[in-house]
Structures are given as C-alpha cells and as structure tokens.
C-alpha cells in the first residue's frame, strides 16, 4: 500500500489541492468498485455502506473543488496525484474485501484509509514550505481527524466479534470454467 517514498511531492498550494482532490477521486472509485462487488455477490447491506462512503467522499471532493477556485484540480489531479508503487492513501484496500464482510469490517477498511490520509497530510504540514499550502494542509489534517473519529464511532456502534474471513463461510466455492 501507499508508502511515504511513493508519495507525490507537494510544494505549492495548487499541488496540494490537486493531490487532495485526487485522493478523494481515487477513494470514490474504490468505494464504487466495492459497492459493485457487494451487489454482484448479493451483500446488499454492504453495497449500501460503500455507496454511502462513496457519496461522502464525493462531498469532500466537491468541497476541495470549491476551495480550489480557479485551479483545475480535475485536470491536475491525475498528473500530480500519483503514488508510484502504491495507492493513494484514502483508497480502500480492495484485497481485504470479502463478500461476507460485515459493516464493521467495511468501516475498518475506511478507517485505515482515513488514517493513511491523515498521516499523509500531517507529513505535508511538516514538509511543505509554501505557507498557504501549509495552512490548507493543516485544515485537511483537521478534517481527516474528524473522519477518523467518525469511523471509530461508527465501528463502535456496529462492532461484532470478528469472523475469520473465508473460514466461517458455510458455502463451499463453486467450480466454473
């Protein structure tokens, strides 16, 4: 997954806006994929959770776009916001999905993303020199903190004893092909 060394270097405000925007875009894409997977595998409950998460990230993306004003983050994002060997921090880790995952597990997945994003922006706060950019980074750090806290709350609400994925599945896999 995302690795500090992979992270795009951010030196200007517009860079930061673009990266922040791209992070949200990637997250949306990933949650939509997960929602689709859950629909295909008849886990409607989780599909709804992921659609909600995608929607929430969509709101964030819109906010950043608003903040960006004239900066065309949609165009800049894919160019600046590239993590070389890994993934953007907020994008959910597809490989930890399971068709029987619970709401709490989904939320943990989201939490991991938020925590990575938080760490990334904290790093930007430390490293970026442009004061405007630093200011925005601080703001983003605050926002991510809220998200992390929200995830924790939701997880507490939905937490159930963790199942060992794949082991407790009463249905044997079915051969195809």
């Amino acid at each position, binding site marked *: 997954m995302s690795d500090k060394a992979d992270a795009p270097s951010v030196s200007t405000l517009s860079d930061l806006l673009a990266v922040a925007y791209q992070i949200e875009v990637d997250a949306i894409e990933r949650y939509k994929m997960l929602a689709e997977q859950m629909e*295909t595998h008849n886990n409607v409950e989780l599909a709804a959770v992921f659609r909600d998460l995608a929607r929430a990230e969509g709101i964030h993306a819109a906010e950043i776009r608003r903040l960006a004003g004239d900066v065309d983050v949609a165009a800049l994002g894919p160019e600046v916001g590239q993590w070389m060997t890994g993934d953007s921090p907020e994008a959910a880790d597809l*490989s930890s*999905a399971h068709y029987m995952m619970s709401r709490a597990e989904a939320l943990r997945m989201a939490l991991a993303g938020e925590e990575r994003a938080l760490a990334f922006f904290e790093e930007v706060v430390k490293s970026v020199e442009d004061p405007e950019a630093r200011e925005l980074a601080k703001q983003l750090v605050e926002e991510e903190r809220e998200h992390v806290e929200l995830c924790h709350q939701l997880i507490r609400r939905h937490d159930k004893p963790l199942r060992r*994925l794949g082991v407790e599945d009463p249905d044997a*896999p079915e051969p195809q092909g």
Partner: protein
Amino acid sequence: MSAEPKPAYKASDFKSDIAPIWCPGCGDYHVLLSITRALAQLGKPPEQVAIVSGIGCSSRIPAYTNCYGFHGVHGRALPIATGLKVIRPDQTVIVTTGDGDGYSIGGNHFLHACRRNLDLTMIVMDNHIYGMTKGQPSPTTEPDLDTALTPGGTGLRPFNPLVIALASGANFVARAFAGNIGQTTSIIVDAVTHPGFSFVEILSPCVTFRPDQRSWKTQVHPAPVDATDDPARAARRIMTDDGFNLGVLYRGNRQPYTPKFGGSGCDLSELEREFEL
C-alpha cells in the same frame, strides 16, 4: 510528454458496464484497474485496443474492458492474439491470462510467442493455483500445497516463468504485484510501449483458494537493480532472486517480428500463370 495534446482518456473509458464476478478481495480487480489506467495513459481510443484471453478467473478480463476482446478457449489466447496482431498491426494487442491458462495448457504457445517476438504484451495473473476449477495446483504452485487433486502436495518444483520467458526470447520481462496498482500500471505502460513481445508476470492473490497469499503484500519489494539488456545476466538474477523482486527486469532490443505482407498485392490472374500450359 509529447507536444501534441493527447485525447484525455480516463481509466473508466476502458471499463465496460459488466460487473466482474470475481471474489471480492481477488487480486484480479487490481489488475483490471491497472490495465484500464495504463490504457488511459497510453492514450489510444478503446477501439484500437484488443484484449485476448483463455479460460480462468483471470481470463475473464476482456469483457470487463471496453476494448475489442476475445475470450477464447483454455490455453490458446496467444495464438488468437498472434493472428489478430499479424492482420491488424495497428491495434494494441494485450493477452491476459493465468498461471494455468498461460503456463500449463498454454505453455507451448508461451514458448513460441516469446520466440516469435511479435509486438504483443502478455500479462499473466499468477496466483499459483487454478482458481476457476476450485484450487488445483498450477505450474507455479509450491510443492507441498495440499489439494484435493494432489493430496499432500505435488512434490514438483514450481517453474519460473520469467526465466522461461527470457530463455525463449521475450523482449521485455517484468514482475509486478497486483496490489501495487501504481507500479503495475506503469509497468504495463512500459510493456506495451516496448517493441516486441513483452511479458508481465503479476502476482495476483486468489483469496479463496490461497488465503495465505494475503501476505504477499508484505513480501514484495522493488528489484534492487535496474533492468538489464543482457538476457544471461537477467536470467541469473531472476534464478537467484526470492521471487518477490518487482519491476522491469529485462529490456531487450531484438527487432520485433513483422510478417511479410505483399503490400496491396498483384492481380489474382498473375497467380494463375504458373499453371498455364
């Protein structure tokens, strides 16, 4: 970056409206994402790309893209891609296959496609198992994996596809890990751009039959050195690495094979002359 503005494609332009039926968690979702991102970066429109596969979970990729596709029979993706590319050299042709489809039943075409060195890219989603048929060992499966078909394990040494590719003449050899979407994307871009036969082995976990492969993400690491153009050196490196070295490992400079076409061609009646008495 070229001066002319490329038409800006997004990865989603290369995704079809068909929802994949892979198990959630399967590495192949990542590979699909990497392929569509790579295609967006390459900047050709979807109709100028053809994706060819055999049979297996991994081989389901073509229909999930918005490109021309061929989901052929088990093991025969490479010959189909060969015919396609020979007739339509203008198309970008990518073969997507699995370790069973590509290395077991399709092993002979693998050898000979490397040797033929057409300008194709072969992407193997290697999960060291036959996913689609419920977990039988493939040529890359570890010898001690207990399966219903091979109780107690096969006892066979897994084979090293990268060395085989090199030995048989592939012009570009790389290893990627499905989870590293960014790196995989750029390797695919590189592979498609490199002339001749490009071989990309992607470690792509099967969460259903090889849940142990979830640990791959902690095992992979970038190759310590840059790609070489010396096949003997590349072979030695690969034969002695730990199997988790990621990156472009070999970049050859053989001329790709281009079949001899007779241009627009002569009048058919000229062919008859040899028969005239």
